[in-house]
């Protein structure tokens, strides 16, 4: 899918604590401003951006909550790249490895009392983008890669819902 270099790129780092979400949102805003300036025809709709932001924030939440548990928080990096036909977000940290991607939360929507109050995050991220990959690099870095195609609108698809 990606045949050429990025048309626009924004990146930044933050210590992986909840306040890092301010940095994540600021980086997303800066990225969209760069995309609008450098290639306005490629800048996606607000609904599309919100879907990507939702997925990026969920993965960042996961890093903040789990990567540095039982140790002082280290850094996390977000890099956003706009390509001809997609946006790729990469989030990295040097914390603990993820053992496996958690399965989607099973909901019994008739039993409100039994609804889980957590565990929706990565399923939500997976449903909001076209592709979500995780790998642990040989040098001990957690690397999350999110890809969202520009030819999709911002609305959730039926396929995404079924996978959520």
């Amino acid at each position, binding site marked *: 899918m990606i045949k050429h270099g990025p048309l626009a790129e924004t990146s930044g780092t933050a210590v992986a604590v909840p306040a890092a979400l301010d940095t994540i949102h600021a980086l997303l805003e800066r990225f969209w401003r760069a995309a609008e300036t450098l290639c306005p025809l490629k800048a996606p709709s607000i609904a599309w951006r919100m879907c990507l932001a939702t997925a990026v*924030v*969920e993965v960042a*939440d996961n890093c903040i909550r789990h990567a540095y548990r039982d140790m002082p928080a280290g850094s996390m990096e977000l890099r956003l790249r706009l390509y001809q036909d997609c946006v790729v977000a990469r989030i990295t940290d040097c914390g603990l490895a993820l053992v496996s991607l958690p399965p989607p939360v099973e909901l019994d*929507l008739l039993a*409100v*009392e039994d*609804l889980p*109050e957590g565990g*929706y*995050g990565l399923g939500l991220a997976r449903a909001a983008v076209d592709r979500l990959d995780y790998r642990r690099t040989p040098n001990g870095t957690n690397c999350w890669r999110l890809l969202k195609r520009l030819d999709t609108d911002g609305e959730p698809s039926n396929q995404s819902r079924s996978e959520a």
Partner: protein
Amino acid sequence: MELLMTEQTADTLVLQPIGRLDLLTAGEFKAQLTTAVTEGKRRIIIDMAHVSFVDSSGLGALISGLKAARRAGGDLRIAHVSQQTLTVLTLTTLDRVLRPYASVAEAMSTDD
């Protein structure tokens, strides 16, 4: 996140969060909901008009408040949700238990 509270009746409270409802703010919001139900507010309306972003932690706080309100014999309802909040609810299918209402008045007047 700021939180404005308006008591409508002895057992009804309208809450208006302002800002993001996320990992940074959800814990405090959840505690406010729990306190409200403990103090007898079993019907809670969340006016989401000024909530700019909701993540899964924010959803968790809303679910926690919904469960507390239902246990007390009441309900928690959300109104004026943004497109982003609606997307998050839809993708998790939680829109079926946290049905968005068009306005606070509609959320208060509708019987399910």
